């Protein structure tokens, strides 16, 4: 790579890394000089200090653990059936004809709007929260897997047909790996959406979790705690996203 391109790449990398710090710095100065109201926008350094008591005294990690556990369970419950049904719809015209209108009718419903119904059905507790996540993840997994199967290049099937590859082998060695990019997109979107849904659900229907903590902080006017929760959600989101990207690179290495 020529030196000028290297320098340019480095320049953009520095801009990329420093932009959050720059905004935090502006925020700090603005809050400390009174340009913005420090009651609603406390300086980032004070928010950072608030992490320690929250984790040590208020056992915030239990809330994080609760939310993470619900996301994991919800993703598992929603992703697997979604991927299976998406695959069936991608492969069978009959299944597509049967399920497409059902998906089209139910997909646009905001998933959090189903929570009251789930609370009635399953009662207060973990399961209703998990189910909200599962329903949200299910649709994303289904739609992306279905799209992934639909986008398998025709030539892959024609090669298999010409070389007389068995149907079982076509499924195992062509359809499954070829639809993996779509399946993974569904998983990544599902995990991100699951994080949004669980926080929303915990605000109304849980007694632990990050969403619950945000709601409690709002009720007790602990603004710094709200910011700590938001920063935590953001960090979890980044870790999950980077982790899934790495996993995808490893599994779908040919992409």
């Amino acid at each position: 790579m020529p030196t000028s391109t290297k320098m340019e790449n480095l320049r953009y990398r520095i801009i990329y890394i420093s932009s959050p710090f720059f905004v935090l710095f502006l925020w700090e100065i603005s809050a400390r000089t009174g340009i913005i109201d420090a009651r609603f926008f406390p300086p980032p350094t004070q928010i950072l200090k608030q992490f320690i008591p929250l984790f040590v005294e208020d056992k915030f990690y239990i809330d994080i653990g609760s939310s993470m556990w619900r996301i994991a369970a919800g993703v598992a419950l929603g992703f697997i059936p979604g991927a299976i049904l998406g695959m069936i719809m991608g492969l069978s015209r009959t299944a597509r004809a049967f399920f497409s209108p059902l998906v089209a009718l139910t997909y646009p419903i905001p998933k959090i709007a189903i929570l009251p119904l789930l609370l009635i059905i399953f009662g207060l507790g973990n399961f209703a929260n998990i189910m909200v996540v599962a329903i949200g993840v299910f649709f994303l997994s289904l739609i992306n897997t279905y799209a992934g199967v639909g986008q398998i290049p025709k030539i892959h099937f024609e090669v298999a047909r010409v070389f007389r590859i068995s149907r079982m082998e076509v499924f195992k060695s062509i359809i499954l790996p070829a639809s993996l990019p779509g399946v993974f997109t569904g998983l990544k979107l599902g995990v991100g959406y699951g994080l949004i849904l669980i926080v929303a659900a915990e605000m109304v229907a849980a007694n632990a979790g990050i969403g619950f903590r945000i709601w409690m902080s709002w009720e007790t006017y602990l603004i710094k705690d709200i910011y700590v929760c938001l920063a935590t959600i953001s960090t979890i989101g980044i870790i999950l996203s980077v982790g899934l990207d790495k996993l995808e690179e490893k599994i779908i290495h040919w992409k």
Partner: protein
Amino acid sequence: MPDSSDIILRIDGLDKRFGEGPDAVQAFEDLNLEVRRGEFVCLVGPSGCGKTTLLRTLAGLDAPSTGTLSIDYEDKEKTTPLAMVFQQHGLYPWMNVENNLRFVLKAAAIENGRHDEIITRFLDAVGLAKFRRFYPNQLSGGMKQRVSLIRAFCVYPQLLLMDEPFVFLDYQNRMVLHQLLLELWTESRQTIIFVTHNINEAVTLGDRVMVMTAGPGRFKREVVCDFPRPRNVVELRKNAEFGKTVVSITEDLKEEIEKAQALESEGRMKSGDNDRISRMRGLEV
């Protein structure tokens, strides 16, 4: 007159039409052809004359509308009847070079114990031994097409169909692959039906070149290319007869291209016919 047992492929009054009514597209009509075992036949013709459709029909990927098509395979259970090299390499991106070959070998009637030896031999033959564990996205266009070529050869098919396999390659790569194909074929002597736009390519490779008319395609002329074998792609170009053959086919094709343009301007054949065929083929599939 060849002995009838020498004939592997016989097509008689073969027709292929896509769709019905005024929107129907006639890909080719009334095709008659006999191909001997071990013969290398090239099909050339203007765009949209149905060359690829004919090849796909032979491969069983498209069904003929009328006419008969018979392929006389010897001992179908113990040998691989047919293989095809496509315009696009069609390698499976999640399988490395070795596994792409192994995948078709497993489905072919070749004992498992011989797979490694066959893979090694063919990879050596095309100079890709070092790339055995590489994935298609790590190979150049020419290398991918070489793998695609040996994928078809390694199952030792009785009939090998090749649909413009070198169309996306540059001139230099194409020359290299012509030589390679000739060497592979000299060794195996399978029957090959090779579709191409490139007249030089057809005359270089084939025993016989079938020139097709503008759409709907019919066989216009048969040109025998009895240049001595084994052939060398560079030496062959120095042969005066080679040049004359290329010029004579070019004149035929020029006439057909002019006819196709005239038909197009009269509105009897639309330039989008190939696209329409693809769409209709999708519907049929």
